[in-house]
């Protein structure tokens, strides 16, 4: 496989052919904000947090799904990009009911961490305050749609790592939501294997272990990493 050299934020970087800008950047120690990206499952380019500027390309492109090419000149941080990222986060906070103070994931939440990091200190848009249900029909896990950002990580791990195909998306636009099977209560799902990978993958407090209380939802991603590395690289990481 041929290597490609490119410039990211003024830094000369080499990457394998077929690698994404996100992979190349992280190899070079450049961190990009991401929400829907999860190591081990394919990328969908949905959250638009990792949008970057590429010289000679009029459109902003997501780093997670754009492959590197020879001589590419990438800018990952600019005033404009930072502004857009902040606005995306504001839109997310206004969209559903993200109340950190009473959230199981408080302190361990990727949305919260990103908001701090991007300097989003308040939301300028009117909150929508939608009414969403909480599904606690499953004996082990719960799903609070109020905290869901529709990153579809849970759907992807369910289909492509566990292979159960329980989680899915129904509805469209602001009414889109994560469902189990054919829109049944999670507890009545025939396909769910109770593996808990969806809970491990969730960036916010939308999916949680039952019984967890405020701030207790720490996620252990090592299991996901273990399976993916074993499958893809045939390496059994201890």
């Amino acid at each position: 496989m041929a290597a490609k050299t490119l410039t990211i934020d003024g830094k000369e970087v080499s990457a394998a052919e077929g690698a994404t800008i996100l992979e190349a950047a992280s190899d070079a120690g450049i961190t990009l904000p991401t929400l829907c990206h999860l190591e081990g499952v394919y990328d969908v380019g949905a959250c638009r947090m990792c949008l970057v500027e590429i010289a000679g390309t009029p459109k902003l492109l997501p780093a997670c799904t754009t492959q590197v090419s020879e001589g590419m000149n990438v800018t990952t941080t600019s005033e404009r990009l930072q502004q857009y990222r902040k606005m995306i986060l504001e839109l997310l906070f206004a969209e559903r009911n993200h109340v950190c103070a009473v959230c199981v994931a408080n302190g361990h939440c990727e949305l919260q961490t990103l908001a701090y990091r991007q300097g989003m200190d308040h939301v300028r848009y009117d909150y929508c305050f939608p009414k969403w249900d909480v599904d606690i029909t499953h004996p082990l896990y719960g799903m609070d749609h109020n905290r869901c950002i529709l990153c579809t990580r849970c759907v992807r791990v369910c289909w492509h790592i566990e292979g159960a195909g329980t989680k899915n998306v129904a509805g469209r636009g602001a009414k889109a939501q994560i469902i189990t099977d054919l829109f049944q209560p999670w507890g009545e799902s025939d396909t769910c294997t109770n593996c808990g990978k969806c809970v491990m993958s969730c960036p916010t407090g939308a999916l949680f272990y039952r019984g967890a209380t405020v701030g207790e939802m720490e996620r252990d991603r090592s299991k996901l990493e273990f399976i993916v590395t074993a499958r893809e690289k045939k390496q059994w990481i201890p």
Partner: protein
Amino acid sequence: MDLNELLQIKEKELAAQKPHTLRCCMAAGCMSSNSQAVKDGLEKAVADAGLSNQVEVRGVGCMKLCCQGPLVQADPAGALYERVTPPDAASIVGTLLGGATHVGKGDPHDPFFTKQLSIVLANSGVVDPERIESYLAADGYTGLHEVLHEMTPKDVVEGLVKSGLRGRGGAGFPTGLKWGTVAKSPGEKKYVICNADEGDPGAFMDRSVLESDPHSVLEGMAIAAYAVGADQGFIYVRAEYPLAISRLQTAIRQAKQMGLLGSAIFESPFNFNIDIRIGAGAFVCGEETALMASVEGKRGTPRPRPPFPAESGLWGCPTLINNVETFANVPAIIRRGADWFASIGTEKSKGTKVFALAGKIKNTGLIEVPMGTRLRDIVEQMGGGAPDGGRIKAVQTGGPSGGCIPADALDTPVDYESLTKLGSIMGSGGMIVMDQTTNMVEIARFFMEFCMDESCGKCIPCRAGTVQMHHLLTKIIERKATLRDLAKLEELCDMVKHTSLCGLGQTAPNPTVSTLRFFRHEYLELLQPDTHGPHGNGAVTQPPVPA
């Protein structure tokens, strides 16, 4: 089927023609005002008058002046009867025997008809869309024969490049270039898709083409398949078009029976099958990557491009995807030559464009005009201006992805570049005329509501951004907004445009941006003074006037 057999069918069809023809519109518009009963009435009247050997009653596709339907046209006399009701049938047939009729007649020499140039709609209102013989009599499928027996795939692509045809779905990508890319993409299996998921409010061009002349689309697709090396085609048509679907099914069945689709077409090694896929009512499925996901049986959501469908489309195979009108142009380009096509239109926009005229305009219907025709000619001369003495205020093109062109810019020629320069787009061809009673902020909100409801929910800027923009527009209309809200709206328009994943989100702010550009005063009139003072982020308030 070989060329001789094809020509024999054509000769037979032409020889069977009776001295008189009564063409009765059987497209969805006229059928909704009972044209089926009119046609039945005409047939009965012909039989009662003993004229069955003299007069043919032919159900045809759209005759263009939809607002006056049901339409019946008598050949060769040329009289065009408007708003025909079933009881009128006898007197219309009576005119053929020298009688008189009270049925209102339209003027075939009205600019609405005389300024049209029909390429895509050449067979519309002339051939019977449910009989392939009728299409063959109009030289149908001779283009496909010529391509299969006298041209290499490369010749076809070069011809398309030379013709200057650009995609009629809205974006105007050069068709020849797209075909060439798919042809060059490596892959054993390739697909051709016809995008018939016409979803813009007020647009009905593609529906009319499918209902009036389905074979021209099938022929265009077959030519495309030969050019790019595909053997399977799909037509993705929305479920809201049942008549178009049934006519397509009939057309595909007839073409297969005659060996014009299927295996060894025209006794050549070329195989091509076409299947229909029916959409389930999502506007976003008109976006090519969402459409392909839907054809594959998945949830219809777009994915980032690149890779473009030409490289990796349906099931990862190189896929050519064009709009209905684009394909319908192809047979004529092959038959009459690329130079002929390139001689029509402007320097960068060749050929004609079909528009669906709707809204506050006298002559509602379908028009096909050469590229470069001035908007004023379309709405004032052909369209007859606003009804009831109204004054045209703006013309909306491109549906929810387009913009509003103000009346003082009506001298703009209709071509891709000029419309883009005005902040609108050519779009698929919906043209909605607005008069002085129209509130432009309401228009912006209408289209924003449409995009909000139709957003698939995959990417955040489109899903949550359209909600906030709609909320801000509502606030403005309800006179609850301030200059600060307007600034927020404009900032969101910019952000959603540049960060959304697919065309739906990227163009959703267009109607708002263009009305803000040309009708800003209408927004400002609705704003309230900012009572919170110049605090907060990005506040745009007017400085207090010193006493």
